[in-house]
Structures are given as structure tokens and as C-alpha cells.
């Protein structure tokens, strides 16, 4: 078993969780700046971003709040770098991509997070987070009338391309990140 203070045992605003939020945000923003260019033709600003696995991974390892902050702030900063502005509802949607995998700490025991059961839970939560997060972003665009005026546009031009690409990227890369982290942290004192 890997030792240490896993997920729920940490204080919400301890130095470790604060730094995890800052590092998660910086990593997500740094990768997004490059991947924001990979726009899917025919959609509205939906990009193929393997980097979505970063807030998902941070959520799974450090808990839902760290995951949410990494996704939310990382997206705000990367949008500010890429083109100079930001859309709040897509930032919240990206926050949800990190928050939902963080719920793993309430669903499985800390001994299981790096075992088969943990990886399956991780993949399931990643797919759910892609549907919920991108669903929130796409349909709030429709509900509040940000740029689109029909539910079909929200579904076909925003929700489906964003949710499907994020779910595939997340379901492949996040368990790899978790496994790599488990191996790298093995034997290190005070590491998860």
C-alpha cells in the first residue's frame, strides 16, 4: 500500500492542496495554450485537448476541490493567453471535468485508488465528468443565449464534439497518469 495523506484526509486549504491547485492550474493552462489550436472543423471553438486529463487526474488524486480549481482557473488563464478573453460557463464546465473524478475519494477506499477497482472507477468518473461538464457548458450557452439560439446547435456543434473528445482523451490518458504517478510516488516518504 502507498503511504501518506490521501485525498479526504487533507485539509481543504492546507499548503499541499493550495500548491496542488496552483500547479494543476498552471499545467492545464500551459498545455491548453498549445492544444487550443487543434479546433474541430464545423464546431464552435471545440478543440481536441488531451490536456483535459490534467484536471481529471488532479481531481482523482487530490480531491474534487483541487480538480475543480485546476480545470476552472486553468481554462480561464489559457483562454486569456490564447485569445485575450474568457467564457465563464465553459470555465465552470472545465471545472466539473476535474470535480467529478475527485468524487472517487467518497466512492472507494484509499487502498483501492491505485488498484483495478480504482482505475475502473476513474474511467467511469472521467466519462461522466465529460458528459456533465461539457453538457453544462454547451446547454448554458443555449439557455443564456451566448452565441447560439437552438438546442440542436448546442447538441451537435458544442456538446457532442466536446464531450466525446474529452471522454476519449480522459479515459485513455487519466488512468495512465494515475498509474505513472503511483509508480513514481512509490517509496517516497509523505507522497500518495
Amino acid at each position, binding site marked *: 500500500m502507498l503511504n501518506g495523506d490521501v485525498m479526504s484526509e487533507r485539509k481543504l486549504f492546507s499548503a*499541499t492542496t493550495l500548491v496542488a491547485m496552483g*500547479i494543476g492550474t498552471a499545467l492545464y493552462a500551459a498545455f491548453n495554450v498549445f492544444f487550443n489550436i*487543434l479546433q474541430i472543423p464545423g464546431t464552435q471553438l471545440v478543440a481536441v485537448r488531451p490536456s483535459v486529463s490534467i484536471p481529471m487526474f488532479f481531481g482523482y488524486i487530490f480531491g474534487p476541490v483541487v480538480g475543480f480549481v485546476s480545470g476552472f482557473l486553468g481554462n480561464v488563464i489559457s483562454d486569456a493567453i490564447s485569445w485575450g478573453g474568457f467564457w465563464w460557463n465553459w470555465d465552470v464546465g472545465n471545472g466539473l471535468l476535474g470535480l467529478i473524478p475527485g468524487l472517487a475519494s467518497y466512492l472507494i477506499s484509499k487502498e483501492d485508488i491505485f488498484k483495478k477497482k480504482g482505475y475502473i472507477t476513474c474511467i467511469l468518473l472521467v466519462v461522466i465528468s465529460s458528459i456533465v461538464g461539457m453538457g453544462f457548458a454547451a446547454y448554458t450557452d443555449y439557455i443564456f443565449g451566448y452565441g447560439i*439560439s437552438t438546442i440542436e446547435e448546442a447538441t451537435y456543434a458544442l456538446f457532442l464534439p466536446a464531450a466525446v473528445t474529452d471522454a476519449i482523451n480522459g479515459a485513455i490518458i487519466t488512468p*495512465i497518469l494515475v498509474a505513472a504517478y503511483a509508480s513514481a510516488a512509490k517509496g517516497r516518504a509523505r507522497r500518495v
Partner: protein
Amino acid sequence: MSTRFIKYVEGDSTVHKLDPRAKLTFLFFLVSSLTVSYHIFLVIPLLLISLLFYFLAKLPWNKTKGTWKFILTIILVLSLLNYLTIVLLYSKGPLTEVLTSPDALRRALTPVLKLLALAVATVTVVFTTPPNLYAPALGQMGFPYKAAYIIQLALRYIPEFIAEMNKTLEAQMARGFRPRGGRNPLAKLFSIIPLVVPVTISATLSIYDIADSMELRGFGEESCHTWYRELKLTGKDKFLVIASYFLGAVYITLFILNLISSPS
């Protein structure tokens, strides 16, 4: 430095001189007002306010043309897409009548104008606010200093991680990895994908060292925190804050009145 990554343009316009807290308050109420605007006649004044805010910032065209190209492309694509989906999916009757129907035009344009107003306001705030003032501004707006510190920390580490990506790519190339595609920009992007795992893992492992060094310096011991950059509200800042509250109050009242008068 992190500041060169964020699209900040130096200047001495009225908007540049405004306190970041006043600009963030204005942005908050503008976004809230846009969110509750249900008619094109309510969106147009907000768009005009956003454009006034942008023009007062006197941003040079050569520094902002890339952003404008991006915004105008989205606006053009969305306008056409909205118009076509409304005309083809929702309208009934002869096509020539439907294509020129004022209702279809209004329904296609309203969300696009909302998006334009939102984009213009956020762009102006980002282009006119030095990135090193976001954390002190949030801290001095009453946010817990630990929450404001996350932004400071993130902006501090973005350039480090971009440098780390280059270092990792060079290390992989030294071991025989050859990114394909030569000067093709898309191939260069694809060469970043194999960096996601090593860079993320090395960054995650560094979290504990950074947290340890912060704790050793007493971070988090005191509940009160002072900021090196102390911000002061001037008369113009106070005016913008009051005007923002007024704008928000008017739009939210109109929204509630509309809900009461037409609950359907």
C-alpha cells in the same frame, strides 16, 4: 516572466489606470446583466457599454488584431449558423418569406450580440490589467488570501512548465525520439502529446517540495495577510463600481418583472 504570456498591453488610458477591483466588479455585473437579458433591446445597451469600455482603453490595433480576427470569425460563423438553423428547422411557410422574417433575424442576432458584448468586455479587462495585480485585487476584495494565492502560484509556474516541456522533449530526442513533420505546425502540436504524462508527473511530485518550503517559511500560520501591492480606489473607480451595481440592479429588476408578468 509569466507576464509576457498573458495578453496585457501597457498603456496610460483611463481604463488602464482603473483599479483592477473596479474592473472585475464591472465585469461581474455586465456578465450578470447579459445573462438575464431576454430581449435584443436589452442586449444592445450592454454591447454599447462594452464597446465604450473597449474604446476608452485605446488599445493599439496591431496588438489586438489577432484577437479581433478570432472574435469576428466566431461572430460571422455563429450568425450564419443560427440564422440557417432557425430558418431551416423552426420556421414555417415559403422560404423567401422565412429568410427575410424579422423574427428569424432577431433570434439569430440576439445571442451573437450577447457573445460579442461578453467578448469585448473580457478582452478589455485582460488587455488592460497587469497579471501581477489579479491576486492582490482579489485578496483586497475580501477573497481569502489563500484563494488569491492560487492565482499567483499558477501564473508563476506557467512559464516553468512550458520550459519543462521543451526540456523533456529535448531529453526524449537525446534518447532517439524524432518528432515527425519537420516544420509542419500541426505535427509540432502532435509532438507535445507524448509530453503530457512525464511533465504532469514531474510537476505533481514537485508539489510536496513546494508545500514543504512554504510551510517552513510559515505560510498559513497567520489568518491575516498583507499585500505588497496595496490598491487604492480613486473617484473614477468608485464611479465605475457604483455604476456597475446600478446596471446590475436595473437588469435584474427587469428580469424579475418580466418573470412575474409572463411566467410562461
